[in-house]
């Protein structure tokens, strides 16, 4: 695997994994408090089973978390890091 591909994979994990953990917690808290049948979508009740709403809720939270992680990663980029080679990013652990 090339270094470039390795970094891409690593960044992907930085985005996806913390978002997954957060989504699990968010799902637990949100659906402990709210009954899926009490939720409304543009004013109409959701015409779906609770299981479907739970699952969609989870992926919704996950997607939100991914967006947040990705934005963090994007804002964390410094001009110096972009000037050098792709491998020049400061924060990643050097390949061993």
């Amino acid at each position, binding site marked *: 695997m090339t270094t470039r591909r*390795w970094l891409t994979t*690593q960044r992907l994990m930085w985005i996806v994994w913390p978002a997954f953990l957060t989504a699990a917690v968010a799902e637990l808290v949100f659906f402990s408090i709210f009954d899926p049948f009490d939720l409304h979508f543009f004013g109409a009740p959701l015409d779906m089973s609770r*299981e*479907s709403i739970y*699952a969609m809720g989870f992926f919704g939270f996950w997607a939100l978390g991914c967006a947040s992680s990705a934005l963090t990663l994007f804002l964390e980029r410094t001009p110096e890091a972009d000037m050098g080679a792709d*491998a020049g990013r400061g924060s990643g652990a050097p390949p061993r």
Partner: protein
Amino acid sequence: MTPVDTRTIPIAPAPPDGDDVGLYEIRKKIYPRAVTGRFRNWRVALVIATQVVYYGLPWLEWNDRQAVLFDLALRKFYIFGIVFWPQDVIYLAVLLILSAFALFLFTAVAGRVWCGFACPQTVYTEIFLWIERRIEGDRLAQMKLDAAPNSLRKIAAKTTKHAAWIALSLWTGYTFVGYFTPIRDLGIRIVGADLGGWETFWVFFYAFATYGNAGWMREQVCKYMCPYARFQSVMFDQDTLIIAYDVARGEPRGARGRKVDHKVRGLGDCIDCSICVQVCPTGIDIRHGLQYDCIGCAACVDGCDQVMDKMGYPRGLIRYASSRSMAEGSSHREIWRRVLRPRTLVYSAILLAIAVAAGVSLALKSPLKVDVARDRGALAREAAPGVIENVYRLQIMNTAEAPRRFRISAVGLPGIEVAGIEQPVEVGAASARLVPLRLQVGAEAAAPGTHRIELQIEAVDDSRVARHESTTFILPRP
């Protein structure tokens, strides 16, 4: 001053070659060597205990239902004799707090014992390694197999291994979903190929996570993905038991024959056999000191003890010890005495207090819950000449596992009466019933305005099972 000759030295990571695809770093595959010993026995015991519970629990029956079932579709959690409703979410919070404090306590006392012995990541990796050894052979055989060119035997071994892993993963995924939807019914529907879309999805999702984490990611999960690994250091102190290499005793290390008196040759007890490195599931050398990659599994302790036995040296060159004891050379008893220190006592006290409070609260949990809301439609109306009526929506939840009948009455205004329902009201086992309730009061009973009243709901068979709910009654101006 002479001008400094500046040169630019380009720094670029060396291109990796032929390594395994690691998700976090370019990873050298670790082939942990099998080890025997007392800590390994503990781990095997815990693997068996946790998995008997995990795979077995959903099959237990209780009161003609699954003993442990988190019924998400009906939003009711059954744990043996107790039924939890969404209103009981506080217990979930309590459980999480208890788990957190238990983790703090264990970590302060003995480092990452959780990681090394009971964490699902360790447990499943251990099971997967066991399968791998059964099929591919021991560490050396595995390394040889991986280095060998593709052959029929290699492909057969790899296929068998992955098939076994996938089968176990699928069973794990099925069991996982079986905690949320009745497992027997789920099994029947799988056999009949009549599984719902989301159920199928979650079975495969969990199976994929198990297969990926225990088969492929392994120590990378502990090193890079686990948040606990990152903040454990704040719970460590000088007296925390960690896996430690006795530098004073071991160094200078070096190879020697069994008959040689190493003291005469100026050598320490470490024969530099590298067994401690070979058995390590995270591939570290514990002789470099405590590292965050160390999951405290004590495999190196077992490995080293065996070598010490063979050499005729005392055991414990690598052992559970606190950093203070290593520095001060304190005795085993001294280490254990220091386990009881303010930090652990405070953690234990908090843990005990929360556990007792939760236990008492569970024991006193009323099998009746009531929720009352005024009807949103009308504030008040005249039901008959001179009779004012207010309408309420009364939700009665019977958490007991037998149907129960309740009598509803109201107090707070002279002559207040419950109308429009047939008393007593029956509510089925572990279910809720919405009762539209009409309360009637004579128009002259009190001054116009809002009055506080109380609804009393009482079980017919047991007057201790009762709830008093406060609400309001509106008397309009005539």
